[in-house]
C-alpha cells in the first residue's frame, strides 16, 4: 500500500493506460545468500517499519520462525541443511518474500481494478483498499507469496517498502542487515555489484555461483546471489524456471474478451433471428381443428 503515484506502469483489471507521466528508474534488491547469517534482523525490521505484529506462534523444532509468510510476516528466512559433497554440510538460508516480478502473475490474475499495481521502478504493490479478497493473486503467483488475512480478507505481501523508496530511502530490511547481505539500488548498479560477488565466490571454489534473476517472469526486482545457481531448488524450493503458469495465461488471456464477444453475439443472434423469422406460433390449421372440436 503506497501513496498516490504518477509512475504506474501496470494496473490490475484495467484496460486503459494508468497514470504514468513520471518515470522512475528501475530498482532492485539483492539478497546475497552467501553473506546471510540468518539473524532475522530483516524480519524484525520489516515488522517494525510496517507496524505489524503477529500473534506469538509455536516452535516446531526448526529455525524457521514464523513457519510461513502471512498477512503480518511479509518476509521469512527459510533454513535448509544441504550436503552437496559428502561431509561438507552447507547451511543455506534464504530470505523469502515477494520477488517483484517484471511480469507479475498476481497482477495478471487480479480481477479488481487497481488492487495490484506495478510502478515503473519495478515495485509490485497491493492496494488493499481495492482488494476484494478473492485470492486470485495467490492462484497467479509463481512463488506462492501473497496471503489473505483471516481478519479482513485482504491480500498482503512485501511492498519492497514502496513508501520508503518513493521518499528516496532503502527498504527497511536493507537498512538493518548487519552483514550487508541485502543491498538495494538502481537495478543496473545492483547487477554490477552482484557480478563482483559472483566473481569472488567463484574464486573461492563455488564454480556454479550465479545470480537469480529469472527470465520466465520478466526478470525480478528482488534477486539472489546463489552459491549454487545451477540448483535453485536446494534453497528451500526456489523454483528453477519460474513463470506464469500456462493455465493462468489461458484463464486470463485472449479467450476471455473473445468469450465476452461470443456471449454478445449469442444475444444479437437471438434478437435478429426474432426480427427476421418472427415468433414460433401454433399453426392456423391446428388452431382451426381445435376451434371446431370445441363447438
Amino acid at each position, binding site marked *: 500500500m503506497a501513496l498516490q503515484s504518477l509512475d504506474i506502469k501496470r494496473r490490475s483489471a484495467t*484496460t486503459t493506460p494508468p497514470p504514468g507521466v513520471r518515470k522512475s528508474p528501475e530498482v532492485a534488491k539483492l539478497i546475497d545468500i552467501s553473506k546471510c547469517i540468518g539473524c532475522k534482523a530483516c524480519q524484525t525490521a520489516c515488522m517494525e517499519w510496517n507496524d505489524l505484529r503477529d500473534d506469538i506462534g509455536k516452535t516446531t523444532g526448526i529455525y524457521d520462525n514464523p513457519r510461513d509468510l502471512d498477512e503480518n510476516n511479509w518476509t521469512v528466512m527459510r533454513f535448509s541443511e544441504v550436503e552437496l559433497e559428502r561431509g561438507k554440510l552447507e547451511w543455506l538460508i534464504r530470505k523469502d518474500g515477494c520477488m517483484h516480478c517484471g511480469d507479475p502473475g498476481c497482477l495478471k490474475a487480479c480481477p479488481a481494478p487497481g488492487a495490484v499495481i506495478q510502478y515503473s521502478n519495478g515495485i509490485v504493490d497491493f492496494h488493499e483498499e481495492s482488494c476484494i479478497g478473492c485470492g486470485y493473486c495467490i*492462484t497467479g503467483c509463481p512463488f506462492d507469496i501473497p496471503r489473505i488475512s483471516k481478519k479482513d480478507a485482504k491480500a498482503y505481501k512485501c511492498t519492497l517498502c514502496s513508501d520508503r523508496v518513493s521518499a528516496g530511502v532503502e527498504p527497511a530490511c536493507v537498512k538493518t542487515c548487519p552483514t550487508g547481505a541485502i543491498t538495494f539500488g538502481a537495478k543496473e548498479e545492483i547487477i554490477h555489484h552482484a557480478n563482483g560477488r559472483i566473481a569472488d565466490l567463484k574464486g573461492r571454489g563455488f564454480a556454479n555461483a550465479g545470480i537469480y534473476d529469472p527470465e520466465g517472469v520478466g526478470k525480478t526486482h528482488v534477486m539472489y546471489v546463489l552459491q549454487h545457481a545451477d540448483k535453485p531448488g536446494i534453497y528451500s524450493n526456489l523454483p528453477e524456471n519460474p513463470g506464469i*503458469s500456462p493455465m493462468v495465461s489461458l484463464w486470463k488471456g485472449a479467450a476471455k474478451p473473445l468469450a465476452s464477444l461470443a456471449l454478445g453475439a449469442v444475444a444479437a443472434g437471438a434478437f435478429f433471428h426474432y426480427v427476421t423469422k418472427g415468433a414460433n406460433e401454433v399453426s392456423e390449421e391446428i388452431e382451426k381443428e381445435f376451434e371446431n372440436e370445441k363447438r
Partner: protein
Amino acid sequence: MKNDKDKIARFTPAERVNHWVLALTFILLALSGLVFFHPSFYFLNNLFGGGVWARILHPFIGIVMAISFAAMFFKFKGENVLTPGDREWLKHAREMFEGDDSHMPEAGKFNAGQKLLFWLLLLCMALLLLSGLIIWRRYFSNIFPVWMVRFASLLHAASGAGIIALIMGHIYLAIWTRESMGAMLYGYVRRAWARQHHPAWFRQVNGEEK
C-alpha cells in the same frame, strides 16, 4: 384456468417454484460471476453492493443453485432420456429455425433440443460446482495444490461462460416459442399448443384422459 377444458397441465406448482428459484439464482450468479470474469463487466459489482460483497455472495448463491438444480435434475431426468427419434429431430432443427417445422419428428414432453440442453446444463453445473468449491479461497482453496486451483479457475470461467450462453439460448427459445412461458408461469398450456409443439406428449396425455 385449471378447469378450462382447453388446457393441459404441464408443470406442477412445485416444479414451477423450483424452476424460478433456479432462474433467479442463475441470474444472480451470472451477474456476480462476470464481475470477476473480465474488467468490462466489473461495474456489475454495484448490483451486489461492491466487489467484496459480490465475492462473498457468489459462492453461497452457487450452493443454493446447486441444490435447486439437483431437485430439478431428479424430477426431470426420466423425461429427458435421448431416443433415436431425437437424433432425427436434431437433424431437422435447422429447418425449424428457418420457420418450417413440417418435417419435425413428433416431440414428446420435451423435444430433443430441450433434452440436449438438460444434459449440457448438468455437465456445466457439475463442473461449476466442483471447480467453484476449489476456487473458494475463504474455505477451501488452501487445502488444494496450486495447480489444481489454477485448473479449476480456468474450468470455472469456461463452464460459466458456457452455461450463460446456454441459458441465453434457453430464454430466447422460451420467448420465440409463443405461450411456452405460460407453461412455466401458470402450469398449463392450450391443447392446440401441445398438439403443435409436443404432439407425442399431447397424444399421451389425451390417451390418459380418455
